[in-house]
C-alpha cells in the first residue's frame, strides 16, 4: 500500500530541492562567468547582478515557442519534458538529512545510476526529431558520450559501494560517519576524481560539451528549440549539475554530516552542510567551464575508454584487496 501523504511529502521535498538547486546553480554559473570574464551585466546591474538570472528566465517566457514544419511533432514536443522528468527522478534518493529523504531505497545507488542514464534517450530523440542535420549530429554525439561516460561513473561508484558494503545512500553516509573520515580521504580519492570527470561529461558541460558545441554544431540538439521548451532543457541541465554534485558530496564528502557537531542536531545543519558541499563542487565546475576549451569527439571517447575506465577498474581492484586485507 502506498501512503498518499508520503508520496506528497516526497514530491514536495524533491520539487523544493530540485528547483532551488537549479536556481542556485544558475546564479552560481552566471556570477562565476561574469566574475571571470569581467562582464558588467551579471556582476553589477540590479541588486549586484542577482536578478540577472531572473531576467534571463523571463526572457524565455516571452519568446515564441516555434515548432518547425518538418519535425516529428509529438517527439519534438515531449523530449524536453522527458529529460526534465528523468533528472527529477534522481532527487528521490539523495538524503538531505537522515530523515529528510524522498525514499531511502536499499538499492539507492543502483536506482540513481539507472535513472541518470535515462536522459540520454530524451536528448537523442530531441536531436533526431528536430529534422536538422546539426541537431542530429548533436543528438548522436550526446548518445555516444553519455554511454561512454556512464561506465566510468558506475565503476567509480562501485568502489564506494564495496567500501561501504551498502547501496543505500543513507547507509553510505552513515558508514562515513562511523569511519570518521569521508570516503574521498579514506581510499576513494581516485574514484572521486573519476566520478567528477564523468559527471561533467554527463552534464555535457565544458570541456565535454560537444553535443551542444556552438562553434561547430550551432547549438547541437538544442538548435531548433526555442522559448519555454528551451528553458526546460536549460533548467534540466542545471538541475542535473546540481544533483550530480549533491550525489558526489553524499558519496564521497560525507553528505549531510559535519564532524564535531552534535548528531542529534543533524536535521538542522544537515541540509545546510549538504548544500555547502554541493555548491563548492559546483564552483569547481564553474571554474572549469569558463577556463577550458572543449575536447574533440574522438579524444573524448579515448579519454573515457583508455584512461578513465581502466583507472576505475584499478580502483575497484585496490578497494577489493584493501577490503579483504583489513
Amino acid at each position, binding site marked *: 500500500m502506498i501512503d498518499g501523504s508520503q508520496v506528497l511529502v516526497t514530491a514536495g521535498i524533491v520539487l523544493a530541492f530540485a528547483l532551488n538547486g537549479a536556481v542556485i546553480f544558475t546564479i552560481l554559473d552566471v556570477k562565476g562567468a561574469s566574475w571571470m570574464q569581467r562582464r558588467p551585466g551579471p556582476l553589477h546591474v540590479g541588486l549586484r547582478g542577482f536578478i540577472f538570472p531572473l531576467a534571463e528566465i523571463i526572457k524565455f517566457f516571452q519568446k515564441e515557442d516555434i515548432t518547425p514544419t518538418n519535425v516529428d511533432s509529438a517527439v519534438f514536443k515531449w523530449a524536453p519534458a522527458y529529460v526534465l522528468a528523468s533528472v527529477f527522478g534522481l532527487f528521490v534518493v539523495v538524503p538531505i538529512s537522515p530523515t529528510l529523504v524522498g525514499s531511502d531505497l536499499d538499492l539507492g545507488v543502483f536506482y540513481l545510476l539507472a535513472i541518470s542514464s535515462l536522459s540520454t534517450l530524451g536528448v537523442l530523440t530531441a536531436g533526431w526529431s528536430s529534422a536538422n*542535420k546539426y541537431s542530429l549530429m548533436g543528438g548522436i554525439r550526446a548518445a555516444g558520450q553519455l554511454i561512454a561516460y556512464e561506465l566510468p561513473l558506475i565503476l567509480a561508484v562501485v568502489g564506494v559501494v564495496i567500501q561501504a558494503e551498502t547501496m543505500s545512500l543513507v547507509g553510505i553516509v552513515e558508514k562515513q560517519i562511523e569511519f570518521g573520515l569521508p570516503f574521498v580521504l579514506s581510499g576513494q580519492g581516485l574514484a572521486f576524481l573519476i566520478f567528477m570527470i564523468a559527471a561533467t561529461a554527463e552534464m555535457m558541460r565544458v570541456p565535454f560539451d560537444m553535443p551542444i558545441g556552438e562553434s561547430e554544431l550551432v547549438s547541437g540538439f538544442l538548435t531548433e528549440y526555442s522559448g519555454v521548451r528551451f528553458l526546460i532543457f536549460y533548467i534540466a541541465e542545471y538541475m542535473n549539475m546540481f544533483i550530480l554534485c549533491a550525489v558526489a558530496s553524499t558519496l564521497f564528502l560525507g553528505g549531510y554530516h559535519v564532524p564535531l557537531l552534535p548528531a542529534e542536531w543533524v536535521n538542522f545543519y544537515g541540509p545546510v552542510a549538504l548544500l555547502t558541499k554541493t555548491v563548492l563542487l559546483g564552483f569547481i565546475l564553474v571554474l572549469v567551464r569558463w577556463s577550458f576549451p572543449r575536447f574533440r569527439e574522438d579524444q573524448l571517447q579515448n579519454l573515457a575508454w583508455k584512461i578513465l575506465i581502466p583507472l576505475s577498474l584499478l580502483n575497484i581492484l585496490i578497494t577489493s584487496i584493501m577490503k579483504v586485507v583489513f
Partner: protein
Amino acid sequence: MDEILNAASIPYVSEASVSVEIETEDMTLNIGPQHPSTHGVLRLVAKVDGEKISSVEPVLGYMHRGYEKLAEVRTYPQITTLVNRIDWVSGFANEIPFIAATEKLMEIEAPERAKHIRLILTEMARIASHFVFNGAYALEIGALTPIFLAMEDRERILDLIESVTGGRFHPNFNRIGGVKPAAGSGPTTKKNIQDLPAGFYQDTRDAMEKVLEAVERMEDLVGGNEVFKVRTKGVGIISKELAEEYGVSGPILRASGVKFDLRSQTDFLPYDKFEYEIPVGENGDCYDRWYVRLLEMRESAKIILQAIDSMPSGPLQTKVPKVIKVPKGQSYVRTENPKGEMGYYVISEGGLGPYRLKVRTPSFSNISILPVLLEGQLLPDLIAIMGSLDFVLGDVDR
C-alpha cells in the same frame, strides 16, 4: 596523455568479419553562410560521413561589394574610404599600401613624421586584429573566456586609434602625401595644427604595457591549457612546400617555418629603423599559427614603443596639388597586412581616379588552401583549422 587522446581511434572502416556491409551515403552539410564560426558569410559545402569530412568546397561571394569596380568611378582621395572597409578588423593597415601605390605613381613621398604616425597606427591595427583572432580562436575551440578579455584589451588600442584619427574601425586618416591632422584639432588652415592628441605618447606607453601583459596572460590562459594543446597541436599541418605552393602569406606562412615578412622590404614605412624579431613556427599546425600571432603582438608593441621614442618633428603633409591628378602609369605596392600579404595594383590613365584597381587580399589567397587542408579531417577540426587561418569575409570577397 596527448598520445593516448590523439591515438588513431577505432579504424574508420572496420575490417572485422561483419557479414552485412552497410553502405551509407555521405551527408551534405552546408556550413554557413549563416553559422557561428564562419567569420561572417563564408559557405562551406561539406560532404560528411558521420564526423569525418570527405570533401569541402568553399563558396564565396556572399559579401561581394564590388570595391574594385567602384574604385574606377571614384577619385583617389575618395578611394581611401573604400579600402579601409576591405578588412575592417585592421582598417588602418589597408589604407597604407593604396596610398603608397598612388604616391609612387605621383613620385612624391610623405614626410618622415607622417611616415612614423602611419607606422604606429599600422602596428596598432595589427595588434587589434590579432587580439580579435586570439579571442575568437579560443572561442571556436570552445573556451568562452578569452574573447571577453581580448575584446576589452583591444578596446584600449581602438581608443588610441580613435583619439588620433577620429574613427575606430574606418580611420580614413591618410592623405596622398601625408596624414590628416588629429581629430578635433580645427581647420587645416590654422598655423599650429595639432597632429597627435595631447598625452598620446604616455597613453600609448601605458597601452603597450597593457598589451604585453595581455599577451602574457593569453599565453598562460590559452596556450598553457592542456585541452587547447590537444586540440591544436598536430592539427591542420601546412608544410613549408604546401604553404609556398598555395601562396599563403603572413602569419600562416611564418608558422610553417618560412621567415618571410614584407615589413623588412617596405620603403614607404620606416621599419628599417627599428629592431624587432620575426616569429617563426616549426610545425605549421594550428597551435603554431596561434602562437606566431601572439608573439607578433609583442613585437608590434615593441616597434610602437621605439617609434614613439624616435618620433621626428616636421610637417605632416608634402605639397600636393589641390586637385589630385595621377600621371599615366601603373604601380604595384604590397605590404604586410596583419593577415598576410596585401597588394594594390593601380593603373592610371592620367585622370582623377584610377583606370583599374586590383586588390590582392591576404584572406582570399589564404583560404584557397582550405579544400586541401580539410579533406579527411573531423568536423571539430574543420572549425579549428578554419579559425586558425584568421580570415575576414570582407577581405575575401571585397
